[in-house]
């Protein structure tokens, strides 16, 4: 199972705790993990990446094993420790606004 940590507002929206575990089919990448997240929690569609284009929303970033992978191709494989569930993929909202 792949683990994903969500920001506060998305946890409230999906009515889940800080972390969710997902079964991801095929290679584990940002695209496949977010796809599995949206399939399990449809209310999150459009909140992390845009409808249609699937483009990452500008104020969100993805972190894997301490590395910012937001700008890498979404289909790039994530590290084994993410794929095997030892480390969570972090979805982080930018610190901005008030």
């Amino acid at each position, binding site marked *: 199972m792949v683990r994903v940590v969500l920001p506060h507002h998305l946890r409230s929206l999906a009515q889940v705790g800080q972390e969710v575990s997902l079964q991801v089919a095929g290679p584990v990448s940002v695209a496949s993990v977010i796809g599995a997240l949206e399939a399990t929690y449809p209310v999150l*569609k*459009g909140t992390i990446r845009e*409808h249609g284009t699937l483009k990452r929303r500008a104020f969100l970033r993805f972190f894997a094993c301490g590395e910012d992978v937001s700008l890498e191709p979404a289909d790039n494989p994530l590290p084994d420790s993410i794929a095997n569930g030892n480390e969570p993929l972090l979805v982080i909202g930018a610190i901005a606004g008030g």
Partner: protein
Amino acid sequence: MSRVRVLVGTKKGAFVCTADGKRKDWRIEGPHFGGWEIYHVKGSPVDPDRIFASQTSGWFGQIIQRSDDGGKTWTPPGSSPDELKSPEGWPQGESNKFVYEGVAGTHRWYDGTPHPWEFKRVWHLEPSLREPDTVFAGVEDAALFKSMDGGKTWSELFGLRQHTTGKDWQPGAGGMCLHTILIDPSRMDRMWVAISAAGCFRTDDGGKTWKTANKGLTSNFMPNPEAEVGHCVHRIALHPSRPSTLFMQKHWDVMRSDDAGDSWREVSGNLPSDFGFPIDVHAHEPETVYVVPIKSDSEHYVPDGKLRVYRSRQGGDEWEALTDGLPQQNCFANVLRDAMAVDSLDDCGIYFGTTGGQVYVSPDGGDHWRAIGEHFPSVLSVEVQTLR
């Protein structure tokens, strides 16, 4: 006994305020969706327990919320526990999917260059006057969407954006938003929308085709002050018994039309400033109109530190200040375009909310005011439901 339910959208959540017909003692529930910007909350006239809310965020985008129990509980349409268990499987999660029809195309950017249409948020939700599952959404970048399944899915009424002038529409300082949707209660296929800063548009065929409704508007910031489009209309309002008479608060100027928007004339009269955002009409007096003037386009607060609602009983031109119960010194708040509403009790109640977080009610048509609450987050919208 009759009751009222006031729906307040703020920069940090939604609030539901209820009172009996005296409108003196208020119960405040919220915040719902704490921390999110709630641009608009509005109930269905057909089923008052059905309420739609536009929940939005610069981080997470657009969410549509719906309550079917008068604002006690909320879910994004199509995602309630019952629907999740449906034999069809998971819902599609499309209640926040606002995708422009066809090739989105371009409009004019601030510097005059073509700029692609990009969906940002829903500014205004207008439930149908007849169908509880039908609701319209006015969005930024300016377009009109319609849902016929209670907000689960949306489709664009693209005839508006494909108007011949669409490529020339340009955003105002607050973005290029479709913020006002009026439905003619006597003729459901007739609607008006207002867009900043394009102007007013009317359809007579349910949204398939549109015509500009800006004749008589003058905007001195434009190269051609009387151009067909480019006017920063802030809000329009009508009385249900006389839907051909429209009132408009424009960027500058308060205007009136008596031919369903075919032409407009100025009725600013003796207002201390004719710049403002909201405008509304008394529930039982079609010629009684309310505005809240602010100082100027670059000073978005009330003049002289005094929060004054202005009322005209002649449909404009002659205005009187309504001040009893409102702060008359050191007030520098604004009232935004969707933050004024009227109830339909015998003694018509007037409501408005400020950018300073106060929500006021006058239970007697504006003569006397009192605060429902004075410490809300900055108020984006106020609507009221009269419950009998």
